[in-house]
């Protein structure tokens, strides 16, 4: 089979990108390899670790199990698109304050997931935070601080 490419228009963090891609290119690879947006991490590349979590139309999904072509016409937000006018997003600030990471590799995915978790209303208790953040693994085991950061950000969002 000849390697055909297709035009794919992507809206990432409010910026439009016109790319020519092989259909098999995932959103994750398009972000990292074509657009230089390396904040979104490739952990397992099999939908098991959550490191590649991004928002599509405001909802958290895994960029490694999404074809770039599938998100044409949709709005994609990555970790690079969270801060506003140089100000950290409150969830980013809470992760810093609570020291919610060690090596930091899972952190962009954790933060993208946490922003959605709070927005969905699933940060009402520590049990609920743990359950609804279960799709984001942290090999360093920073979970207690991650839960504390999500709890703090959720309380700030509610106040």
């Amino acid at each position, binding site marked *: 089979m000849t390697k055909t490419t297709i035009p794919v228009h992507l809206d990432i963090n409010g910026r439009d990108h016109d790319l020519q891609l092989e259909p098999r290119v995932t959103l994750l690879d398009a972000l990292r390899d074509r657009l230089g947006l390396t904040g979104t991490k490739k952990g397992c590349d099999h939908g098991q670790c959550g490191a590649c979590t991004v928002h599509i139309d405001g*909802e958290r999904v895994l960029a490694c199990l999404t074809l770039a072509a599938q998100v044409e016409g949709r709005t994609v937000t990555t970790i690079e698109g969270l801060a506003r006018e140089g100000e950290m997003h409150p969830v980013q600030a809470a992760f810093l304050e609570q020291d919610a990471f060690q090596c930091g590799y899972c952190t962009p995915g954790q933060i993208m997931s946490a922003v959605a978790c709070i927005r969905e209303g699933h940060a009402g208790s520590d049990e609920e935070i743990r359950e609804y953040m279960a799709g984001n693994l942290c090999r360093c085991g920073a979970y207690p601080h991650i839960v504390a950061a999500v709890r703090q950000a959720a309380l700030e969002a509610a106040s």
Partner: protein
Amino acid sequence: MRDFDYIRPATIPDAIAAAAEPGSAYLAGGTNLLDLMKGGITSPERIVDISRLPELNRIERLDDGGLRIGALVRNADLAYDPAFAKSYPAVAEALLSGASAQLRNAATVGGNLLQRTRCSYFYDTASACNRRQPGTGCDALEGENRLHAVLGWSDACIATHPSDFCVPLVALDAVVEIEGKKGRRHVSLEEFHRLPGETPQRENALEPGDLIVAVRLPAEAASFSANARYLKVRERTSYAFAVVSAAAALVVDGGKIRAARLALGGVAAKPWRARSAEAVLLGADASEATFASAADAALADASPSGDNAFKIELARRIVIRALISALSGTPERLPALPASPFSNIPGARHDA
């Protein structure tokens, strides 16, 4: 991942025509298919992306009191639909016990029915697997098989179906609506998935080009809403497939069981409707002794396919536990850990 042609049809007939060509596969949420393609377990030459097809993402009440769920409704949207969660709480609980929040935002109703087994030999292209490559044998038979089937397996294949969603669905008499080259037809979910027999590669009733367009629940399915639960034992608290699961639904009046539904997950190559157990329950006293008899009936034909005799006793206990939980009533709030037998901490309301 092998390269492929990418087609995004505008209508259902266009999609069916495109997918009827050999080497084609439908793409919806992609949470299972893309993973399988990365591993070379399946290598379609043509991907028919149906995720933008109109009319397949609706939840509709039917005039006869039933419900029609479009095949592209996402797991999260269905579980959080207040009317749905209130009428079919065990289905909502099963949906929320599966995968992660990110995956539930992508995975669809139709795709959930079509997800492939999680048998590690199926996933390893260096292993023999009759399901992946007919006639090569089954390395699971003499391999790491403690999580494999205890009901309905054959020497050709001992894999299980991994779905949570399908377990309460099959208990509630769900029907799969399929559109194909010859028009539209309905197949009960119980008959949709196949046991392996000598042809484990034939996993369901679909013919080439066939598209699942909806899943229907009959009116009676909502009559169990006050006493319905899904319980799931996993090897970690969350974000894991079922070792064993059970959906139990009862209608109880004056201490007697007037209607009963029971199905098991993680035990067979299909969601397992336990009709013999339902026969034991029907008309009997709603008591633990009855539930134990029903559990015995449900597992009467079970046998280990390897290192997994423990799953038979585990399934028996989960059946009893699910029936006790159903009898005590659907909780007003979904548990914070949906379907967990180890936590009763309340979470969101069913109709929130």
